[in-house]
């Protein structure tokens, strides 16, 4: 989104782009906010073609409004609440972590943030039997600690191993690696 170029949307040819650029219309915003009659006269393009182009560009690049009732319906069917495995934390979070929401845990060093994360990961992997992606950018994750948490839940080694396998650990120590990880994850999710 931004600069007008041939093929950006159906109906926008290289000729048109050239003629518009010669009159100072270089970006999508320029074209959409311009007075089209004026542009048609100055650039020698048909007014109808410009109006159609404007409509196509707006349909392609603007956001689509959705109805509140539909959104609520969708939310009801797709939202799940994941228990953190810590009773008092669940009470604070109104039953647990809601899917579709970002929950931020903030605190100074040594206040227990990583421990909460490890506990939630163990709970989701073992009790809820779901997959976890654990992105570690602080180096605070140790597999032995998760194993300890799982051993407290079950003595069966097979079940512990099963739960550990459901936790995928990714390390990202700079912002670009982090973005890469998130993009890869998004791609993997959309293929499911």
């Amino acid at each position, binding site marked *: 989104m931004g600069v007008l170029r041939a093929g950006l949307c159906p109906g926008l040819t290289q000729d048109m782009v050239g003629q518009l650029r010669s009159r100072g219309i270089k970006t999508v915003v320029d074209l959409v906010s311009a007075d089209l009659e004026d542009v048609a006269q100055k650039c020698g393009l048909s007014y109808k073609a410009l109006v159609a182009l404007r409509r196509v560009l707006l349909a392609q690049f603007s956001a689509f409004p959705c109805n*509140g009732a539909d959104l609520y319906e969708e939310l009801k069917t797709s939202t799940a609440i994941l228990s953190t495995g810590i009773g008092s934390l669940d009470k604070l979070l109104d039953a647990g972590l809601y899917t579709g929401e970002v929950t931020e845990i903030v605190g100074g060093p040594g206040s227990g943030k990583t421990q909460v994360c490890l506990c939630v990961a163990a709970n989701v992997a073992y009790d809820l039997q779901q997959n976890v992606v654990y992105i570690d950018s602080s180096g605070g994750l140790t597999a032995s600690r998760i194993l300890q948490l799982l051993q407290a839940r079950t003595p069966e080694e097979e079940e512990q191993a099963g739960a550990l396998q459901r936790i995928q650990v990714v390390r990202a120590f700079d912002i670009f690696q982090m973005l890469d990880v998130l993009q890869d994850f998004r791609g993997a999710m959309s293929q499911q």
Partner: protein
Amino acid sequence: MCSDFRRAESGTELLARLEGRSSLKEIEPYLFADEDSSVHGDILEFHGPEGTGKTEMLYHLTARCILPKSEGGLEVEVLFIDTDYHFDMLRLVTILEHRLSQSSEEMVKCCLGRLLLVNCSSNTQLLLTLYSLETVVCSHPSLCLLILDSLSAFYWIDRVNGGESVNLQEYTLKKCAQFLEKLVNEYRLVLFATTQSIMQKTTNWTEGPSSALNHPSEADADYRPYLCKAWQQVVRHRIFFSKQEDFKTSNQFSLVSRHLKSNSLKKHIFIIGESGIEFC
């Protein structure tokens, strides 16, 4: 493009449009500093640091609008533009359930049917969305309220993209402000927009700390306008939100409403409960 649409309107549609849009006077008397000022074409800015109740106030206003007349609402439609991507549908539903005398799924869904929600990921997308929303406003005669949460979401991104030139930095937001004013005036809407306090408070070294407490408008004495001039000119009321500092009243929030032309000021205190905002 849209003027053709309006000419094709029937007599009953015209009446519906004018009648429907004049009932917003009751929306929330606490927010308007100047009692005589007309509500149509009003643009109000909610300003304040995070956690001071701006978005909660938007849910309160949305609920007031979408509830049916039999339950004390205005039964009008609301268009909510969310640039922060933090619209909490479950919170709005909780507020509606508390305010309905008989809360059933059907009633809640009927109310939510009067809400339109849009998300925008940049000021450019916001501008293009506003242009295409003109047709939505034309086709919904009972749409009276436009909400924008928040207008300052992409401020720093614009600053970076604009480089050294202030004109370039403010270009898109300026166009948004001008188009919003046009929309609000032409279709007789009311716009509520939130902005974050992202600039540091000014410290007045000569006066000292005690004078700040005596000053009646201490909430807005520190206000530093940072959005483009086009937006500053378009705002008619500016409402400052803040949390009470006093330990005894630590669950209270306050809002100071200033009408920019007449310079009249009003202060109100509210708390936020399960059913939304309650004025004290």
